[in-house]
């Protein structure tokens, strides 16, 4: 049986909020032992993790793999390679492909392709409504049986409140969470960035924070009515954080995620009409960024997810109005979490890790996200001291559309293990020369 021993690393246990030096022995794709001074067999492969953090395999619950239908942007193979390079052992694939993942057959295709690629694990998300058109419910039962872990019309809000209510009742019955892209399209119509001072100066149409908050408020009320587990995708405004905090205090089954670009950048990044900074929801104000960090720290926001949204160069190399929304995120997430949250003390290391491991695993009802004897060996190694300049041309993702090109980030994933298969994702030992950001 194949075995590995990860030596001399520092294990992070997000569940017990513990950080301790230990070796990890992996046998046959499962964790056999965690402890000091472990020894393997003669044929055991030794992975030197000196100076590295040994984390449960990171899970990104919000990724657009684009396949089927948009293979010029990304494929399941390239997207899952990007996941590995970014330190993720598993990703959720959003259903806004062509065709939309609104039935078992499409989910099955995604899973088959992911298996054939043999990179990170893929958990498909199924559509709420057929074709994500917001008119009729998609077949939740057959999708769940095919391996779908959540339902969402991501990219759009299910604007019909009645249909959302029924979708939530049905999903609650199956004990599958509903992920909502909270954006009232009537309020955001025509907008390409956050409504406010910067949009006024640039002459770009704005999307008000209220477009998000109105949608969050309605969905919280419907979650309360139906008992459904609501997960709010990519929270971006102070008002949305407040609504979720209040709902949680009231006992509503609601969880939420934030993206690294929303907790790092403000609307100022759009200056110069940088289409890589055109995302939906839009980058907001410094006050919103502060509120998102507060929400992360007090637990209102459970998850860090990237909303990895690859686009081709031609699609982004155009007028701001004409460019599609979205930024890639898989290969910058760990660096941004360490540089922007852990290093300045917004989150402790175990807290930050929890938001990328055990928390998404709980939301999606996955047996993953922890390092424990007997658990599947999904493991991420991060060198917290290693600095790296973001070079989009080196991304494994087909999408190079990041607003972080040239940034120097500290905290780099160096290796991942997926079910006992080991991937070294950075050349070992060599630290890349960097220039200051």
């Amino acid at each position: 049986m194949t075995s590995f021993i990860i030596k001399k690393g520092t294990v992070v246990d997000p569940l017990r909020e513990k950080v301790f030096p230990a070796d990890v022995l992996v046998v046959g794709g499962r964790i056999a032992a965690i402890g000091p001074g472990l020894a393997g067999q003669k044929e055991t492969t030794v992975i030197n993790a000196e100076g590295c953090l040994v984390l449960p395999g990171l899970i990104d619950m919000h990724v657009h793999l684009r396949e089927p239908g948009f293979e010029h942007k990304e494929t399941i193979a390239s997207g899952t390679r990007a996941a590995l390079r970014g330190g993720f052992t598993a990703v959720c694939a959003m259903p806004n492909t062509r065709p939309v993942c609104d039935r078992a057959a499409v989910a099955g295709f995604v899973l088959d392709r992911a298996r054939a690629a043999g990179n990170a694990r893929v958990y498909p998300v199924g559509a709420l409504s057929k074709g994500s058109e917001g008119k009729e419910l998609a077949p939740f039962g057959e999708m769940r049986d095919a391996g779908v872990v959540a339902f969402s019309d991501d990219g759009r809000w299910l604007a019909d409140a009645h249909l959302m209510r029924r979708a939530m009742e049905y999903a609650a019955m199956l004990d599958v969470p509903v992920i909502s892209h909270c954006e009232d399209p009537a309020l955001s119509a025509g907008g390409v960035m956050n409504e406010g001072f910067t949009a006024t100066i640039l002459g770009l149409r704005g999307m008000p924070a209220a477009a998000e908050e109105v949608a969050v408020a309605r969905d919280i009320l419907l979650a309360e009515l139906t008992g459904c587990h609501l997960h709010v995708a990519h929270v971006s405004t102070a008002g949305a954080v407040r609504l979720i905090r209040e709902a949680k205090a009231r006992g509503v089954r609601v969880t939420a995620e934030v993206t690294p670009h929303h907790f790092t950048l403000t609307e100022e990044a759009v200056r110069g009409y940088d289409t890589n900074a055109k995302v939906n929801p839009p980058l907001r104000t410094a006050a919103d960024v502060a509120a998102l960090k507060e929400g992360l720290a007090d637990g209102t926001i459970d998850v860090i997810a990237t909303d990895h949204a690859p686009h081709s160069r031609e699609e982004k190399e155009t007028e701001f109005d004409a460019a599609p929304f979205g930024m890639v995120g898989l290969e910058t997430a760990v660096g941004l979490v360490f540089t922007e949250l852990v290093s300045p003390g917004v989150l402790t290391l175990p807290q930050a890790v929890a938001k990328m491991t055990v928390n998404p695993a709980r939301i999606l009802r996955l047996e993953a996200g922890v390092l424990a004897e007997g658990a599947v060996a999904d493991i991420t190694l991060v060198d917290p001291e290693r600095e790296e300049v973001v070079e989009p041309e080196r991304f494994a993702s087909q999408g190079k559309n990041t607003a972080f090109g040239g940034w120097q980030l500290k905290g780099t994933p160096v290796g991942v293990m997926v079910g006992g298969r080991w991937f070294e994702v950075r050349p070992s030992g060599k630290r890349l020369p960097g220039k200051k950001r």
Partner: protein
Amino acid sequence: MLTQKDLLGLEELTADEIKLILDTAGAMREVMTREIKKVPTLRGRVVVNLFYEPSTRTRASFELAAKYLSADTVNISAGSSSVVKGEGLLDTARTVSALGADVVVLRHRAAGAAAFLSRYVHAAVINAGDGMHEHPTQALLDLYTIRECKGKVQGLTVTFVGDILHSRVARSNIWGLSKLGAAVRVCGPATLLPPGLDRLGVQVFTSVDEAVAGADVIYVLRLQRERFVQGLLPGEEEYARLYGINEKRLARASDDAIVMHPGPLNRGVEIAAEVADGSRSVITEQVANGVAVRMACLYLLARREADDKLYH
């Protein structure tokens, strides 16, 4: 000398650069009074007018300006070219550049289009209006007109009335007037006021009577009819009642106040006919000054390019 290759907006210009353009326009105005309105200054230079939005005034103004300076001009507009075939701005720009354009004048519906174009072409780019962002040559001709009528810009109070939200003319003027030391007021219905203007030092009003009081310049903006269907305004009569500039409202302004409008006018909506055609109106002067200001811009940018070639 202008420090930048392009004229993308007044946000990027210094007060001295604006004054240089206005002074140069004064010299150009003199050329226009000659019997033969032509100087050989830009002979052998190519000016391409690339218009993705319909425009009669601005395009004619740029074309005349180029011709008075003896430049060769090419007009490309939506509806008459590969623009219709779905060729993107980037490809059209590269084509124009390969054809040897020295100056590209761009009108486009997308904010930032001129800035985008300028990154891909060697030619100087003049922004002739990009979405709701800026329309620098319009503001420059407005500044020129104000300076001509009032003898100065500094210390004046200029009130813009109307659809501030969608107005690139207002945005460019706010930059220009502020840099030259004028006080700027904007006034319009709350639905047509963009957020954050106060951060630029602009006074924001919804009452036209208050906004006009004591002002030296009343600048009336054009109201597009599509604002009604967009749900931003109840209707034309309501707008004329609350914001239309008539004799009565004009009387609240300073005694020698002038009235401006970028055209084309909706008489009886944003401006009463008797005001538009009255003695305070300088609307036709604006049009004439527009040619001189555009000559100045073409001259300064093309000359800058010539200097570049000399020294590099």
